[in-house]
């Protein structure tokens, strides 16, 4: 798994680790029951604080993506990728709800809203 820490992004380092681990789980690069890099080794390799990696791993565990087995390491949960999909779908729903609310205020008809979504979808596939 690739883990890269940016010093200029302004995103806290523990958050960067979390995001990249989540992305690896979702893409299937990290499989069920696969071990994350050892906490202290990762801290050494990335030259960051052990506590920072601990925080990233603890939060991933609290969110249900990995489980910590005392003395053995951190492993990807069976439902890790499923959970992530659910979370993302939830995010999509929230975003769309916001869009609908804004459309109501702007008096935008539903067909227009659908059309807008189609255009945006198309525009994004070009990237």
């Amino acid at each position: 798994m690739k883990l890269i820490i940016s010093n200029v992004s302004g995103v806290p380092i523990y958050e960067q680790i979390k995001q990249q681990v989540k992305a690896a789980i979702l893409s299937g690069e990290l499989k069920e029951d696969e071990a994350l890099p050892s906490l202290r080794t990762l801290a050494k390799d990335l030259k960051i604080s052990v506590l920072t990696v601990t925080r990233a791993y603890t939060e991933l565990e609290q969110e249900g993506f990995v489980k910590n087995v005392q003395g053995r390491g951190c492993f990807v949960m069976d439902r890790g990728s499923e959970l992530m999909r659910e979370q993302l779908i939830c995010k999509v729903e929230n975003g769309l709800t916001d869009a609908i609310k804004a459309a109501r205020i702007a008096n935008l008809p539903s067909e227009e809203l659908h059309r807008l979504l189609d255009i945006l979808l198309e525009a994004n596939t070009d990237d």
Partner: protein
Amino acid sequence: MTNYLEVKNLSKSFDSFQLHNISFTLPKGYIMGLIGPNGSGKTTTIKLILNMLGRNGGEIKIMGLDNIADEQKAKAELGVVFDTNYFSDDWQVTQVEKSISVFYPNWKSERFAEMLRKFHIAPTKKVKELSKGMQMKLMLACAFSYDAKLLILDEPTSGLDPVSRDELLQILSEYIEDGEHSVLFSTHITGDLERAADYITYISYGELFFSGSKDEFVDLFRIVKGGTEELSADLKEKAVGVRTFPTGFEALVKTEDTVAFSSLSIEPATIDEIVVFTSKKGDDYE
């Protein structure tokens, strides 16, 4: 969690300087940075831990042992690296081993030889022929040869080039990787070491300003920036430190106070910025 170093209510008075009630603990397996401006009491604190100065009050425990009553036992577990080396200049590296090893029952000659190879130190060289970075590595090689559990470094990075600083950082993170070793180092803070420290103890003018995890410390403050006319009286009052210049201002503000200024640019603060702003005690300068 086992603590490798416990400092409680440590006090020391000199004629012109006082160290007041310094308390902090360093758990096993972590790195702590001791920071503060020059003359704030970092070296005094380290000297008190090493019993090189007599304390006026408080308590210091190294791996559970009192640093004075059990000094011999405690120091057998302790490795020390100073800004300048404490060996005789004319000693060859082999003589350094001969002279130092007798004090440590756990000394392993093979380990010392291995460390010299790893650090590329020629055993026949004299101490004075080694560069500053090499001398530091020699001190580390000694500490690793008797498997010191706690490493104390006083300003280890001052006078080192970026390559040696990076090597030191690498050595320290390898040292704590197994979770059985801890490091306390004092420094004027440079970005690379800022990343590796787990805990920060910040001493300012003899007083303890903060001791805790580094992330917590960095999260305490934000930098607020804006144009000169945006510097309200409310912001001035809440700011820990302000720097004004003809085109605007920069202020260090407690994170919880930033809500009121959400229209301005708010950025995370670096440890350097926190130290600079908090030690100026809010004085403006141009």
